[in-house]
């Protein structure tokens, strides 16, 4: 990966982080903090998007700037937008409060729903 592409990936990750904090904060304000809906939303949406981008742009790496689009969108934007650390800390906190159902739901959203979203995104991205 060229230094310019790496810089663009990092900057896209910063942008993704801002979008995550804003979306998570707005959902938290509207839906309350009882269940971690904000984290669930960013992880499912970001996983759908990484699937679409990989489905559309995956395969042989294109030369020049075109080849930078997938890492910038996937590793940068989607990687910075989604988060795993926050999701597992929330699962842990729900477990500490003995809210086992909510903890299991949050864990399932992180791994199962996000994986289904990525698979759906790959199918959508490969459509002609």
């Amino acid at each position, binding site marked *: *990966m060229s230094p310019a592409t*790496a810089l663009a*990936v*990092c*900057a*896209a*990750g*910063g*942008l*993704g*982080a*801002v979008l*995550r*904090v*804003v979306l*998570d*904060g*707005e959902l938290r*304000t509207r839906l309350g*903090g009882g269940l971690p809906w904000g984290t669930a939303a960013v*992880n499912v949406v*970001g*996983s759908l*998007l*990484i*699937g679409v981008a*990989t489905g559309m742009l995956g395969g042989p790496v294109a030369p020049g700037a075109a080849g930078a689009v997938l890492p910038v969108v*996937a*590793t*940068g934007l*989607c*990687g*910075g*937008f*989604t*988060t*795993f*650390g*926050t*999701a*597992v*800390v*929330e*699962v*842990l*906190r729900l*477990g500490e409060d003995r809210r086992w159902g909510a903890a299991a739901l949050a*864990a399932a959203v*992180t*791994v199962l729903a*996000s*994986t289904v*979203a*990525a*698979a759906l995104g*790959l199918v959508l991205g490969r459509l002609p």
Partner: protein
Amino acid sequence: MSTSGAAVARPPHRHPGLLLGVLLGGTVGTGLRLAAGEALPHEVGAWPWGTLLVNVVGAFLLGALLETLLRAGPDVGRRRAVRVVVGSGVLGSLTTTSALALETVQRADVAGVGPAAAYALVTLVLGVAAAAAGVAAAAASHRSRRPGGQDLA
């Protein structure tokens, strides 16, 4: 994790200065994740060591950071800025669910459902365990710095 009464007036996600900090923190976290991926490259469908490493290390550090801040006092001022910029920005972007999800699907395609499920479950279990270890480490450090002091938990 929760916002105290004093901070409700302007939540962090509507605070331009904090969002600028998140932009910089997210850039740094993504750079570290990118470096881990470049250092531990994997073929499509193979076991993604780079993603597993950043997710487990990031979960430990986030658990330790949030517990340290929680024990230090209310979520306002500098503590809130550190939580948002380092926690949500750097560590939020160091860890990733989108790569985990995509790699799980690709692994299912290449190696089958069993190896794919193993990758996702190992990440989840190690991630929760790492976050718990981070919380425990921060709690132990807090107690050792205040011998005989009251444990907030």
